[in-house]
């Protein structure tokens, strides 16, 4: 197990000759993503400030890029790519399910409290 690394990323688009090479490749990829995030964060292009699904488009881009980074850190640095499907699913899906639930409840209720304050302590007037 310890010596059998899968050396492909991007679904086989990029193949590396050794594990060390793959690590540097992933570092370059993560650095590019971080650089893109920082540049977008500093300049905040006006064209990306429109609202998509209740949030600024730019914020969705940040969140998606973060999840991409999280994927490559987990899969290549933490070697999740080389673990059995059982371990991978037990760890990843458990966390994703519970975190999505937590986020949904708390953001939903935060929005509710905002609306209550905003409308003078009346959320809905039937």
């Amino acid at each position, binding site marked *: *197990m*310890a*010596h059998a690394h899968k050396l492909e990323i991007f679904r086989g688009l990029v193949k590396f000759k050794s*594990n*060390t090479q793959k*690590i*540097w490749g992933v*570092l370059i990829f*993560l*650095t590019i993503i*971080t*650089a893109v*995030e*920082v540049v977008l*964060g*500093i300049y905040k292009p006006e064209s990306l*400030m429109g609202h998509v699904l209740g949030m600024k488009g730019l*914020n969705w881009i*940040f*969140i998606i*890029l*973060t999840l991409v*980074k*999280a994927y490559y*850190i*987990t899969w*290549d*640095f*933490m*070697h999740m790519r080389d*673990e*059995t499907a*059982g*371990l991978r699913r*037990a*760890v990843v899906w*458990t*966390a994703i399910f*519970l*975190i999505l639930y*937590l*986020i949904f409840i*708390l*953001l939903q*209720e*935060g*929005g509710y*409290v*905002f609306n209550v*304050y*905003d409308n003078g302590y009346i959320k809905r007037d039937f």
Partner: protein
Amino acid sequence: MSTTVANTGTEDKTWGGGNEPLKASYGKMMMWFFIVSDALTFSGFLAAYGFSRFKFIDSWPIADEVFTHVPFLHGQELPMIYVAFMTFVLIMSSVTMVLAVDAGHHLNKAKVTIYMFLTIIGGIIFVGSQAWEWATFIQGDYGAVQTKGGNILQFVDTDGHRVALRDFVEAGEHERVQQEQKNGIWFVSEGSLPTYTVEEVIHGLEKHDNVLVRTQILNEHGHKTVLDRAESIKQLKANGKHVVEGANLKENEYGSPLFADFFFFITGFHGFHVLSGVIINIIIFFNVILGTYEKRKSYEMVEKVGLYWHFVDLVWVFVFTFFYLV
């Protein structure tokens, strides 16, 4: 590791304990399960931050205006640059860690030693940077006035640039002195007093025609609302309660106190993880030098602390996004 576990003599049977259906050792699997639970803890904190932010969605501080400092570049507004550097340091130390794990697979003691050392250095640089970031945040920059309702009034010039209190307010003689244990009741003391009183700020505002008050409320463009001259003086006179310089758990010159509370709590909890990660890495580093894993013919311990170290990096990626970018 077999020397540390008693054999039961039933290893060849299905339920005898010799099976590894997930092809991972006990220790590694438990590290993964610990990481899952720790990830849920951090998610809880970040989701709670999200809750407070959604609750005050129209008045939350703008992170780009809060974190603008870079060491040795005094007085320049450089949002994001220093955090980007910190992020890069942490990712880099993740890379040296995974290189150490890889060298461990090849039982290359010299390389494991070097890479572990670099990882520890990266961790120390990160923790140091975070301490500096905290110090800057606590010290504050421009100063503000808190209203009776607990909101923050900041000051800008007519072009919309921030103006610090020290640039337009003159401190007079104050009768009120800081109460310390030695000069008052011995069991009562208080924090340092603000440099200015609200009266002095009002006086300074009246003398300087180009200074305006900026409230916490965000307008439709996502900028803070700036009041006109008459309204500025009226608001400050009617509602100004005391001067806030910097941030602590109770008040915060950048806006909602909750912002500072979550900043201290989440980056503090993360920084504590980095600190403990550095300490564990140092322990493993010395074990590597002493040849513990060389004798064991397995560097799996390096792999396990590596998992923890990458997890700390993983959390930072999310903290970075939700505190500094979004």
